[in-house]
């Protein structure tokens, strides 16, 4: 037990939280942008899986990280385009479409992997590239802080900048204003000449690009290769974080880090003789509890209960 506590209190643990939260932050930010435009999209799993494989393949065949990134982004955006076409043009049910794409993502990546490498499990035979690790000068030498914040994969820092970028996009740009208006009252937006479908498509593409980095982080950072279904629900946890954060970028970041800590704790506990599967369940249990919290807070607000108490106090 002592080992666990000392583990959790160590800077290493917080470092781990940031490390495991990175894909969640990307997924959550993607979900946020798309949600703001009023689209119910759950296809982030597929986007991230496609990007994870696309990045690996692109970088392995060209030995150029930049080409890998472009391939990863395009793979993810491909899913976003398919989703947009079906949901916005053909008006299919968004949840069913998302579900179908996620299954396509899972099967399609394994199929592509098998065609390219002859292996259905991992891409370890491909010599794919990784995103570099960044040691921040000066900060890396500060004890504790250096251990926590320095030495991360470059995408971890990118994910934090993405939060800022998404904030600016949503609240400070014309496009953000239009995305919000389209999401909240499409008729109002349409009546002043905003192209509703086009705006939603743009939001989806931005979401696809952000999600692609979450996917590429999995196969070119977190692990050095692609494995089947390696996103394993992180796209969904991102959606959950977006909900928990109420669609506000900074709260969504906090929610993503919160889910990330559950992930990190499960890593620590695995050193005990508790079955690994049980601990791997932890992040998802926390997600469900988190959503219950959101759900119940929708039922009776604090203000309401407080005010009722006040009135009761006056009348009795």
């Amino acid at each position, binding site marked *: 037990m002592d080992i666990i506590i000392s583990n959790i209190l160590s800077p290493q643990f917080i470092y781990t939280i940031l490390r495991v939260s990175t894909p969640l932050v990307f997924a959550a930010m993607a979900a946020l942008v798309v949600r703001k435009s009023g689209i119910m999209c759950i296809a982030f799993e597929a986007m991230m899986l496609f990007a994870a494989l696309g990045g690996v393949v692109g970088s392995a065949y060209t030995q150029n990280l930049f080409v890998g990134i472009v391939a990863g982004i395009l793979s993810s955006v491909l899913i976003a385009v398919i989703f947009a076409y079906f949901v916005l043009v053909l008006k299919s049910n968004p949840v069913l479409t998302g579900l179908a794409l996620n299954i396509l993502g899972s099967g399609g990546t394994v199929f592509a992997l098998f065609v390219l490498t002859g292996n259905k499990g991992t891409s370890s035979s491909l010599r794919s590239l990784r995103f570099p690790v960044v040691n921040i000068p000066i900060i890396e030498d500060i004890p504790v802080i250096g251990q926590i914040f320095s030495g991360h994969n470059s995408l971890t820092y990118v994910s934090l900048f993405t939060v800022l970028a998404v904030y600016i996009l949503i609240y400070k740009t*014309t496009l953000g204003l239009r995305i919000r208006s389209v999401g*909240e009252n499409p008729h109002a937006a349409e009546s002043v*000449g905003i192209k509703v479908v086009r705006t939603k498509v743009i939001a989806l593409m931005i979401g696809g690009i952000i999600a692609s980095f979450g996917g590429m982080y999995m196969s070119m950072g977190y692990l050095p290769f692609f494995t089947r279904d390696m996103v394993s629900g992180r796209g969904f946890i991102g959606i959950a974080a977006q909900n928990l954060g109420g669609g506000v970028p900074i709260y969504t970041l906090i929610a993503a880090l919160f889910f990330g800590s559950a992930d990190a704790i499960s890593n620590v506990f695995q050193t005990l003789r508790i079955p690994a599967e049980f601990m791997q369940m932890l992040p998802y249990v926390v997600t469900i509890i988190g959503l219950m919290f959101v759900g119940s807070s929708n039922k*009776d607000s604090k203000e309401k209960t407080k*005010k009722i108490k006040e009135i009761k106090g006056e*009348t009795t």
Partner: protein
Amino acid sequence: MNVDEKINEYILVMEGITKIYDNGFVANKNIDLRVKKGEIHALIGENGAGKSTLMKVLFGQEQPEEGQIIYKGEPVSITNPLKALELGIGMVHQHFMLVPSLTVAENMVLGIEPKKRGLFDFDQAVKLTKEISHKYKLPIDPLAKVMDLPVGFKQRVEILKILLRGVDVLILDEPTAVLTPQETEELFVQLRELKKNGFTIIFISHKLNEIMALCDRVTILRDGRVTGIDDVENLNEKQISRMMVGRDVMLTIDKTAAKPKEKILEVKNLHYVDQYGKHVVKNVSFSVRKGEILGVAGVEGNGQREISNLISGLEGFQLGEILYKGNSVVNKSIRNLREQNISHISEDRMTFGTVSDATIEENLVSDRFYKKEFNKYWLFNNNYIKKHVNDLIKQYNVKCDSKDALIKTLSGGNMQKVVVAREFSLKPELVIANQPTRGIDVGSSEFIRNKLVDLRDDGAAVLLISADLTEIIEVSDSIAVMCEGQIVAYLNNQVHVSEEELGEYMLGLKVQTPQEIEKVMHYEES
């Protein structure tokens, strides 16, 4: 006056407009509308008379089968709302085209956003809003969020929004439907001011008194045709109403004095707090007796809806007592309350009153399908249901192709008649009628009001909640006035009270003391 001048006099001419919908419904038949520059032109007609369709054609939302539009002397083709805006025709819709969580300034510039260094220039948006609001004397707080604004101000944002886009012609689609009498008066002042500034206004309404008070000329529609066009000063309310409905509408309901019996509904010290911690209903007490109609007057959003929902079981109960026949209704299921003969006309017929994707038949039996007579063994007794439904359709005069028509294809008035047919046919002892005639045509309104009086005469208790003062005064035997969640006045309506008096109470300009309220209520009970 020579011919040229005569043409120039009209800023907008719609000629021979015919619009046939895909389902074969002819909404407009050869309609002519001529609007003079700088006038306030009323477009009046019952629900389903074709006003909305005509305006949709003008605003580019529908394409007519025949006819042409001439704007400023040039024939134009308006293919979409943006084209209309570009030409200088703007519309204030009945359902506001605003984004609630955005500020007034952001809503104002949506679609034509000012930019600075690539980013949205919020300060400039605020400045533009202030300028235009100052120019046309329509004060507004640019920084307020639209969702926090009262309805009258939301409407003002809508008007400012189209003014900002530089229109010459403003179409207002039933703008007063959501306003209080005072807000309406204010709107009229604003519209007259805009007229002075040279704007042309098309004012859609079915309230005769408003048209008399505000408009210069009027075009009257009935069944998709023009039945009259003239200067308002040449007409009186009776003439207009005859052209609208083709007969004289009784402007007063024929009813005898109430013969109230025992109390059936008692509400004691009722409170309600909403999701945001707002104290919406504050210590409200009243009672309704069999054989009387208690009107609850008040501007919408002053706690009436919550009271109606609490009594009918739609809203979770909090504090106070509601007794029906001496028993508490708290935690009773809605079916249980209905089986005790409480009927409820919801203010929102699209969400609570009907299922819009279901047929008339399904809606009419939606509260009674489980009863014995509607079933035969374990299946529906379709013959019985068919007969029952067709009887109701006939009895309540629902205009439809058949009982299998979808509710959403009906006009507002007919939709409400379906609601009323269902609610009144369960032989209610207590009727909660919340805004029963809102937004529906004169004929249907009259029908529903008379039904309410009939039910009263048959011994039912009626709680009539309405923002329509004429309705409250004509139908009620006594009137409770609500303002900010409280009953601020309780009036005996044996001799009609005046709209002005009610209006003053509704807006909190006048308040009765608890003693005064008690006095009237005691008188009622004696």
